[in-house]
């Protein structure tokens, strides 16, 4: 694996898209990790291609309503909620 497979600018760009702030040390660490991950994907190139199921198409459901989650259940995993809404930091 070569160290410059992923450069720090690419890591900063991806971090910005994910709205994550990184320290310089973290950028270097992630650059190495990204390079490792890309290398794993290269391994996939050696996997023989298999035909995917060509008949699998048009999987659809009828336009019928089913029960939804209770609001309480829907919000259960949310770190914060208010008046039935999910609550999060300001975003712009």
């Amino acid at each position, binding site marked *: 694996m070569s160290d410059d497979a992923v450069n720090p600018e690419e890591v900063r760009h991806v971090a910005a898209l994910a709205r994550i702030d990184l320290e310089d040390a973290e950028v270097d660490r992630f650059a190495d990790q990204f390079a490792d991950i890309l290398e794993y994907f290269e391994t996939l190139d050696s996997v023989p291609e298999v035909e995917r199921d060509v008949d699998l198409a048009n999987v659809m459901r009828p336009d019928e*309503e089913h029960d939804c*989650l209770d609001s309480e259940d829907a919000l259960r*995993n949310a770190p914060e909620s208010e008046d039935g809404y999910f609550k999060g930091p300001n975003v712009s």
Partner: protein
Amino acid sequence: MTAQTVQQGDLVTVIGLEVHVQLETNTKIFCSCPTEPADEPNENVCPVCLGLPGALPVLNEAAVEAAVKVGKAIDADIPEETRFHRKNYYYPDLPKNFQITQYDEPICADGELEISVEGERRTVAIERAHLEEDPGSLQHVGGGIDTADYTLVDYNRAGVPLMEIVTAPDFRSPSEVRAFLADLEEVLEYLGVFDAGRDGSLRVDANLSIIPAEETNGDGTIDEEALAAANRTEVKNISSHKGAEKALAYEETRQKNAIQRGRAVEQETRHWDESRGITVSMRSKEEEKDYRYFEEADLPPLRVSDWKEEIAIPELPTARRERFQVEYDLSEEAASKLTSTKQVADFYEDVASEFDPDLAATWVADELLGELNYRDMEITDVEDRLGEVNRLVELVATDEITAKNAREAVLRGMLDDGDEPDTIVEREGLGKTGEDEVQQAVVEAIDENPDAVADYHAGEGGAINFLVGQVMQKTGGSADPGDVNQLLRAELEE
């Protein structure tokens, strides 16, 4: 525009649209939650539209049918195979951090829509139309988008089916855009796949650029290079025809002013601020490559090109308008009013099949739509009472009541009090008075007014009018004044 008319410094406006319309289905596009607006936030949500781990999307057949109908109506190709992609961006209105949409294999390609701009026919090319899911809605609490304290998120809308319709840069003015949106909505409503009255059912992003007139071709077309050379702005947050015209007129002026003052137009995204009537620069968003589109492996491809033959669509407004003019011998204006919505056109044809088409046109286009419009109502608000309107037309057609009474007493009473036409006719005694009764009133009027009779015989013109008035009073206004006049003269000359 011909070459001779082009002057150095003339500028041409070029606009293309991305129109998002909500498809009318019962349930969301990838899950079985209802699309009806909910009273409470996060009421119509499930693991799929909340993006919970392991939840899998399953495509709603009705959304695909609606898309095929749209494709047929705009004469688009429905490719042999079409598929979905993930568009990745990180924003809390998307619970999965990606939106399921279509990328390079949309369900509709290469269509067109014929529109009418100030009486002239124009064809607008539609490059593509694709299916996608709507994101959720955000509320920025305690300030504007930049200054809010925190954000509240409601996913009721997340997963509502949308169709994004992308036009070629074929518009040369904001008023053309407005005309297109009106005609597009009309077609979509005819197809039964769209409800213009629904909140948020139409959203428009528009690209606008200004190019020198000498770079246009003789036939008004513009080469791609000329277009690519001009910086354009993308105006977002437009939600109505009127808003589109206003936003683009503002943007057109802003860019022309910049060019005329020798300043460059920035290539940027701008936000239409409806309340202030201006567009404002938005912080630059991701470029296309940043969306990292990739195939949605959880949804197998669609092969629905043959649905185009199987699924029927109704006669579209333009064709119906032309047919009405020929078949019912209507003016263009009347035909236009009567085809403004499919419900109106269907009802008109219903009435015209039983009664005189001209009378039917008057009663549907002028009287009914006029009274509804006055009350801020639509034909859909009286959907279940159209049989009563039909009966009212019958009462007029068979001469049982006068047109004046039908309009002023019966139709208004029906709409204001919810009464049936026959009830009103009976209660108000509006049935046209029988001949015997009128004759009786004529005799009475003559007996009771010897002075007027004497004046009549002395040749005073006003006397007969006085006697007609007396007879009308006796018959409660239900007799025909012309008939009364004749009967009186006959009686007086005897």
